[in-house]
């Protein structure tokens, strides 16, 4: 039996990894995958908390999160495709027409 703190630690590590990925990577797809990693880190801690409290709400919430993530994926990929069609590139550092 791993103590609950362990799950939370892993989840925090995963979350930080995701955050760092969003900051450091330049491909829109990879950045988005890092966001997904953050969400999954949250899922992990939600399940851990749910077990800890003996309360099902957390696990229900995980399903909602997965749902929402799926919706976001569909929109996000569509945006990436639209961008790629116009620019032949999905490097976010190169899209900076809007600034100032």
């Amino acid at each position: 039996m791993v103590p609950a703190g362990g799950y939370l630690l892993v989840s925090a590590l995963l979350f930080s990894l995701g955050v760092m990925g969003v900051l450091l990577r330049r491909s829109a797809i990879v950045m988005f995958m890092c966001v997904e990693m953050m969400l999954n880190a949250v899922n992990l801690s939600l399940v851990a908390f749910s077990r800890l409290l003996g309360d099902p709400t957390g696990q229900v919430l995980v399903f909602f999160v997965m749902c929402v993530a799926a919706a976001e994926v569909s929109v996000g990929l569509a945006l990436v495709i639209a961008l790629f069609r116009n620019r032949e590139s999905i490097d976010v550092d190169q899209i900076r027409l809007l600034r100032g």
Partner: protein
Amino acid sequence: MMPQWTPYLVGLPLLGFLLSGLLGLLWPRYRRWEIGIGVLAVSVVALAFLLALGLFVGLPQEELPLRVVLYQWIASGDFAAPIAFRLDTLSLWMTLIVTGVGALIHLYSIGYMRGDAGYWRYFAYLNLFIAAMLLLVLADNLLLLFLGWEGVGLCSYLLIGHWYADREKAFAARKAFVVNRIGDFAFLIGLLWLFREVGSLDLGVVLDRAGAIESTALGAIGMLLFLGATGKSAQIPLYVWLPDAMAGPTPVSALIHAATMVTAGVYLLARLSPLYVLSPGVLGLIALIGALTALLAATMALVQTDIKKVLAYSTISQLGLMFLGAGVGAFSAAIFHVFTHAFSKALLFLGAGSVIHALEGEQDIRRMGGLSRHMPLTYCTFLLGALALAGLPPLAGFFSKDMMLTAALGSGHEVLWFLGLVSSLLTTLYMGRLLVLVFHGAPRAPAVSRAHEAPAVMRLPLVGLAVGAVAAGWIGWPDLLGHGAWNWIGRWLSDSTADLEHGLSLGLEALSIALSVTVAVGGLWMAFRLWGRAGLEADHMLQRRLGGLYALWQSGYRVEAIYERLFVRPLLQGSAAPLRWSERYIAGGLIGLASRSAFFIGSGIRRLQTGLLSLYALVMLIGALGLLAWFLWRSL
């Protein structure tokens, strides 16, 4: 007359504004129907005047002050700000001045603005100005007063910039607006502070509880509100906008920048006089600033060559005298001077307007002269106005000026009294100079011979104002005569103002009056001798004799240059090229600093907004970490 009619005083001009504005905006043909526009604008103000007269006659003095509530504007929690008007001797008197002089100037404008493309706009704004000014003087709540205060500032801005296609005029308008904002800012802070101390901004409550405010706070509030007054009333250090404000049409200068709006600061001091008498230090400062402004502006008026600029500096100087009067505790005398000055200065401005009109836009007095033959009525009325302003008895200006000066002497401000006397002397000199250079002597430009009298619609207001300039002083004879029994205005106003008693022996008072009369007669005689004989040569002679001092007066004590160097130029060097043109004309202390730092911050932020997504995410992360650090720190 029922006091319930009071809201219509504000409502009538407001209605005029709305009608003119909406019809003009939506119906292009209306814009050319000058008669309709003019009659509408004049009649609403004239009606307001009649209404004010009715209230003045119909309400016995014992029943004042009255509070007329229109409706509850703000009611949130324990704070309520009703739209309420205060009818007392002070507000009623100011209402009479504003509507009376205002109606005459509206009438004059019908002729003066004929053929102007923005005719409807002009009258709409003029009506709006009257409404805002009446709101200012009638408001029972300081917040409402502030609304009027901002409103007159806005109208002044719009009307100075009436010919906005001319860049310089548009910039003059902006300068007036910006300088006024500095004062308004102080005013607002003062109001907030007052609210904190008293818990209400209703005049009744504020004046009742003035004594309960702790004295340093009271002094600070007084100072802040006074700073607001210096902005609106063009006193040191915020007077720089008024000379430039002459870019507006001349009737606007007469109405807003001589007779009414610029006196709002004096009105504010008189309105809050129960508050001010509790902090003698602030009063002393007010008197000092007033005396200095009066003196310095009078010297500058002496060397101007633009007819309207002479009058503008003269206005600043006269306002300085009013502040001196208020500062020595003679609030009712200051308001009395507002009253007499409104007639004489409006008259002078309208006369100047007729001259400018006749000379097809010429404003330089060096290219005038000998106009008295071509414009006899204008000359006669202008003469009366000038003599009244110079303080020649028994014309109007003498009585009010004398009342303030004796108060200064009686309250032990001998130095300030002397400064006031010197500025009176200077007043006679520059008024004499103006009169002689414009109307006497030989014509100095060909246009003079073609000059002709203005149409009747412009002559009528001149006559009306001239009557006032002669007789308006007779309601306030010095205490010397009848021991104050003939001083009707003092008794009327002292119901609302907290005048300080001053014990002046009859002998000293007689001496002071004698000196005033001597100064007036002597100064005028000197001016007529000097400029009457030598004409423009006298200016050159003065320039030679006074040398550096004269140059200093001409440069306006280099104040503009100092402001320019201190605030404007550093700003220019700091800001981006496309913004330069707009910043060049901001002269003023706080706003210069504030806008400089604002532009600095702004350009910094824009540089941060690089369009880089990762940077945006990084800033978010930093923000998030900041939030977390905060909460962790608070919970530990």
